[in-house]
C-alpha cells in the first residue's frame, strides 16, 4: 500500500513568497488520518514535508465508501430517496432534491408549486445548517473552540424546525419524486419566523468574534489560494469558485424548483484564500435567511404531492409522538373504506412506480458546490444507474494544489475552508 513518494526537489517556495533554502536532503513522509481530529472526517493525507513546508500531499479516500450507488439499483425509485440522502450527510435536502428532480424529469412531471416552494425553503435552511457546522468545525480545528459551541447552538434551532416538519433531525427522506411526503404542520411557519428573527443577530455575533480577530486573520489570509483558472481546470464549484471572483451560482445560472422567483445576491470575493471563503459562507447564510423569508411570505397553497395516483406516494404521513407514521385517518381509509386505495397503496409501496427509459443529468447548488445526479432508467421499477457527482470529490482532488508550498498548520486551515464531507466523497 505504498503511496507514490516524490523524488527530492530543489528549492521550495513558501506561500508568502520567500524562497526557502533546502536545509538537508531529508524529506519526511507523514500520515494524517484517517482518524484525525482536524481532517473533517475520514480523510487520509500523506504529506511529504521538508521541515515544516509541504512539498507534496496525496489524499487517500475511500474510508467511508458505502456502495450507495449500487444499493439504489436494488430498491424502488421511491426508496432511492432514503439512500441518496445519506451520501452527503450535511446537506441531505440537496441530495434528495437533485434525485427527486431527476426522477421527475424522467417521468415528465413537475412537482406542484407549493411543494417547490417548501423545497426551496428547506434547502436554504439546510444551507444555513451546513454552513454553521462548517463554521463550528473550522473554528474548532483552528483553535477557536467557543465557535464550535455557538455554531451547534444555532444549528439545534434549525434541527428543531426540521424535526417539526419532517420528523427527523438529519437524513430526512422528505423530498420524494413527485413532491413532498407531507405538508407543513401547524405552527411550523411561526417557528421558522422565530428562527429568522434570531439568526441574523447571531451571524453578526460570529462576525464580531472572528472577522477582526488577528489570530483568525493571520491563519486565514493568504492561505490556501486557488485561482479562477485552477478552479476551471479542476472543475471546482461553490464557495471556492466564488472566492476566486467567478460569480457563478447554480441557483441563478440554472435554477430548479422555483429558485428564479426569489430575490437574492451571490457574494463573491477576489482574494481566493481561506478568509475570502469564510466571508462568503457567512454572507451566504444571510442570503439564505432572505430567501426563506421570501418563501414564507409568498407560499402558495395547494397540494404537496403530484396529483397522479400512479406516481404519488400514497401514504398520508404525519409526525406523531414517536416520529413519522401513517396518519390515523389514512389507515382507516385504506383498511375500512376503500379497497382500491388499499390496492394502490400496496402496489406503489411494494413494487414502486415505472419510470420511462432514458437518462437525465440534474445539477443543484449544494452548500459545497455543484451536486450532479446522472440517473438512467431502463423502463422498470428500479433505477438502472444512479450516479452521484459530489462536489467534495473534486475538491479533495484539488487539495494538493492548495497546500503545496505552504506550512503544515496551513494544511488544516485549507482543508477546513474546502469543507469536504467524506460521505459525499466516498458515497
Amino acid at each position, binding site marked *: 500500500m505504498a503511496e507514490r513518494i516524490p523524488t527530492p526537489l530543489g528549492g521550495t517556495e513558501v506561500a508568502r513568497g520567500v524562497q526557502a533554502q533546502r536545509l538537508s536532503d531529508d524529506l519526511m513522509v507523514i500520515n494524517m488520518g*484517517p*482518524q*484525525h*481530529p482536524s481532517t473533517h*472526517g*475520514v480523510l487520509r493525507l500523506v504529506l511529504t514535508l521538508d521541515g515544516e513546508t509541504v512539498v507534496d500531499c496525496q489524499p487517500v479516500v*475511500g*474510508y*467511508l*465508501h*458505502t*456502495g*450507495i450507488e*449500487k*444499493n439504489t439499483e436494488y430498491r424502488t425509485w421511491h426508496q432511492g430517496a*432514503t*439512500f441518496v440522502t*445519506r451520501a452527503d*450527510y*450535511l446537506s441531505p435536502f440537496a441530495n434528495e432534491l437533485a434525485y427527486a428532480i431527476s426522477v421527475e424529469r424522467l417521468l415528465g412531471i413537475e412537482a406542484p408549486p407549493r411543494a417547490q416552494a417548501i423545497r426551496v425553503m428547506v434547502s436554504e435552511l439546510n444551507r444555513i445548517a451546513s454552513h454553521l*457546522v462548517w463554521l*463550528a*468545525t473550522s473554528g474548532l480545528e483552528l483553535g477557536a473552540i467557543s465557535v*464550535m*459551541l455557538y455554531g*451547534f*447552538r444555532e*444549528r*439545534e434551532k434549525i*434541527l428543531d424546525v426540521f424535526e417539526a416538519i419532517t420528523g427527523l*433531525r*438529519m*437524513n430526512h427522506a422528505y423530498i420524494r419524486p413527485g413532491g413532498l411526503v407531507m405538508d407543513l404542520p401547524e405552527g411550523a411557519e411561526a417557528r421558522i419566523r422565530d428562527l429568522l428573527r434570531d439568526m441574523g443577530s447571531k451571524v453578526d455575533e460570529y462576525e464580531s468574534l472572528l472577522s477582526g480577530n488577528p489570530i483568525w486573520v493571520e491563519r486565514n489570509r493568504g492561505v490556501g489560494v486557488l485561482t479562477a483558472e485552477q478552479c476551471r481546470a479542476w472543475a471546482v464549484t461553490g464557495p471556492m469558485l466564488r472566492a476566486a471572483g467567478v460569480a457563478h451560482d447554480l441557483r441563478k445560472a440554472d435554477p430548479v424548483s422555483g429558485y428564479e422567483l426569489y430575490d437574492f445576491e451571490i457574494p463573491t470575493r477576489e482574494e481566493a484564500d481561506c478568509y475570502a471563503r469564510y466571508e462568503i459562507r457567512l454572507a451566504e447564510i444571510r442570503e439564505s435567511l432572505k430567501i426563506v423569508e421570501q418563501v414564507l411570505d409568498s407560499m402558495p397553497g395547494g397540494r404537496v404531492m403530484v396529483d397522479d395516483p400512479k406516481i404519488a406516494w400514497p401514504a398520508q404521513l404525519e409526525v406523531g409522538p414517536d416520529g413519522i407514521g401513517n396518519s390515523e385517518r389514512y389507515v382507516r381509509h385504506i383498511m375500512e373504506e376503500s379497497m382500491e386505495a388499499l390496492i394502490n397503496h400496496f402496489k406503489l409501496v411494494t413494487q414502486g412506480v415505472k419510470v420511462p427509459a432514458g437518462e437525465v443529468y440534474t445539477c443543484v447548488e449544494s452548500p459545497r458546490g455543484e451536486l450532479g445526479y446522472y440517473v438512467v432508467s431502463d423502463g422498470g421499477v428500479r433505477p438502472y444507474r444512479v450516479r452521484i457527482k459530489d462536489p467534495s470529490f473534486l475538491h479533495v482532488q484539488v487539495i494538493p494544489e492548495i497546500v503545496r508550498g505552504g506550512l503544515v498548520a496551513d494544511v488544516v486551515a485549507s482543508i477546513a475552508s474546502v469543507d469536504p464531507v*467524506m*460521505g459525499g466523497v*466516498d458515497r
Partner: protein
Amino acid sequence: MTDAVRRAEEEELRQGILTTTLAKLVNWARKQSTWPVTFGLACCAIEMMATGAGHHDLARWGMEVFRASPRQADLMIVAGRVSQKMGPVLRQIYDQMPEPKWVISMGVCASSGGMFNNYGVIQGVDTVVPVDVYVPGCPPRPEMLMYGILQLHEKIERRGTLT
C-alpha cells in the same frame, strides 16, 4: 480448629470489604470521566458532536474532552458506517487504547450494517471489536446516545475487579 477457621474467615472478610470498597471507588472514578476517542465517521458523528455541544451537554459526565490520541482515551464511540477499508484502521485504534476500555456502537450502521446491506460496509463492528453498548437509530438522537452512555456507566459500576 474452628478458631483458626474463624480467624481466617474474618481476615478474608476484612480484605474482601476493603477490596470491594476500593473497586467501587475506582469504578466510580472511571465512569465519571470516560474520555472518548474521536472516531466519528459519518452522519452519526455529527449527532455525536451535537451531543457534545452546548444544548445536550456531554460535559455533565466529564466526557467533553474527545481525545485525539487513542492512548489517552478509554471509550470508543464508533459513530457511523464502517467501510471495508476502515475496518483495519478501527481495529488498530482499538488495540492502541489502554485497558480498561469500552466500545459504544452508535447507530444502526455500526451495530449491524444498517440500511447498507452490501459489499462496502462491515455488517456490524462487533465483528471487529467487542462492543459493550449498542445504540440504534439512524442517526440516534442525542438523548438516545446519552441513554446509551448512562447504560455504559452502569455497566462500568457493576465491574467486580480492580483491573
